């Protein structure tokens, strides 16, 4: 069963890429306030707020793609916050489970999707320049999806290393959010008006996701060449005139991100302290001494926090900070 569904995917992948091209040039032209927002957001550190600037300004409400609760400006009223803390401590709620939504579903999704996000007539972000200018990928919706799932897969690899109950939940939240977001984008940004066509696209994207995760997993576990062919089939859509240096660059990019992920403890990762290393930077390996110091620092920090009574019930976590 596994095999047949995967074989189907590879047909699907190339077709989906083509069909989506049709919608490519119809991409949204944003209002002028976007570039101001970009400038402002560059000053701030990477956070969910950056995403806010990309929201189409046509006066419509966005239920999920651009939630006001994800904006950095939004502050929960004090009484709501206290009530929340009370409920968490009274019912002894498992915060590691609850946190999956805001961390994986919201924050981690936002860093995955902004890597390849581009709008027509808007300057490309640094990471988008890498994908569209350096790797010369076509600027289409399905290409953006491929870039996004490549980054999501890297996070999946790390999430598998968390305790099963939590890691699984994180993965689920990330996937749920992805498809919720794509659905909205298809309607609002790609101007698809038919629910039936959107459903078709969503099914296509779902098979693409399964196929890509399978192929990347195989490549990750076996060798660089297999990973490179997986990248070639998915990210580069099996293009014949492939530049091997580009393939090598992407393999290197993936391996370096996974290296950073493996050096993070479960606690740090689950609290959303991870950021992708920008493609124009090189990850240097840690020396054993540096690694030891880093781990010591982290475990000291969380040990202190856990022992003190200063942290709020919503900030508690049972995940390990030493691994």
């Amino acid at each position: 069963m596994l095999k047949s569904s995967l074989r189907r995917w590879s047909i699907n992948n190339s077709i989906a890429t083509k069909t989506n091209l049709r919608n490519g040039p119809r991409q949204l032209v944003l209002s002028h306030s976007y570039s101001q927002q970009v400038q402002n957001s560059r000053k701030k550190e990477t956070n969910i707020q950056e995403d806010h600037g990309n929201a189409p300004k046509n006066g419509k409400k966005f239920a999920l793609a651009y939630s006001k609760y994800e904006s950095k400006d939004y502050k929960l009223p004090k009484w709501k916050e206290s009530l929340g803390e009370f409920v968490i401590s009274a019912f002894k709620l498992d915060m590691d489970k609850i946190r999956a939504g805001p961390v994986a579903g919201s924050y981690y999704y936002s860093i995955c999707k902004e890597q390849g996000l581009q709008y027509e007539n808007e300057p490309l972000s640094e990471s988008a320049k890498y994908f569209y200018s350096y790797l010369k990928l076509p600027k289409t919706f399905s290409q953006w999806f491929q870039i996004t799932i490549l980054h999501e897969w890297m996070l999946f690899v790390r999430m598998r290393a968390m305790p099963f109950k939590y890691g699984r939940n994180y993965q689920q939240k990330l996937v749920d959010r992805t498809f919720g977001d794509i659905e909205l984008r298809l309607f609002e940004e790609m101007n698809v008006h038919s629910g039936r066509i959107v459903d078709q696209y969503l099914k296509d994207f779902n098979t693409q996701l399964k196929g890509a995760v399978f192929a990347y997993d195989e490549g990750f576990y076996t060798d660089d060449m297999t990973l490179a062919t997986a990248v070639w089939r998915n990210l580069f859509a099996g293009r014949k005139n492939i530049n091997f240096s580009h393939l090598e660059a992407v393999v290197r990019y993936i391996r370096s991100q996974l290296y950073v992920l493996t050096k993070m403890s479960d606690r740090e990762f689950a609290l959303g302290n991870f950021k992708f290393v920008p493609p124009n930077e090189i990850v240097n390996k840690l020396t054993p001494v540096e690694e030891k110091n880093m781990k010591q620092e982290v475990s000291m920090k969380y040990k202190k926090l856990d022992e003190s009574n200063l942290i709020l019930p919503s900030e508690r976590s049972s995940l390990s900070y030493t691994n």
Partner: protein
Amino acid sequence: MSTIKEGAKQIVRLLEKLPDERFKHLISFKETQIDRFRRMAGLQLKEHKEANKNASLDDIKDIIKRTKGPLGLKKDVLQKLRATIPQDNYTEQTIKQQIGSLENLIANKHMKYYEVGDKLYQPAGNPKYYQRLLDEIQGKKNETFFTALRTVFFGK
């Protein structure tokens, strides 16, 4: 020019040494790239066994089912796409780069350098995940109906 041909021949030799893909996909990296560089090196093209295989009725049905949606590509879109895809204009230096990159990939350079260790290869949440996946691809038949059901219900 001759150095480019020599380079292309070297790439063909490297590609031919690659093991076959573990899983049969619709397109094979090895085959398409061997074809491409054989042409560049002026070598004769090989006939692929798989290329002559006729598609079964199920395959055709499957393709039709999937292409029923909007497939009409507009000409300007195609042109735009072609403009972004790099062409094969190799110089002596770029072909050397290609060979270098391919050699690095074959030598597993990045996997060795950015070693992630058992933390990710045997992930705590699901230690046998990758091994099971690989066994399944290689057809080791370790999976039974019940282990499959277990995965469906418990996720691992």
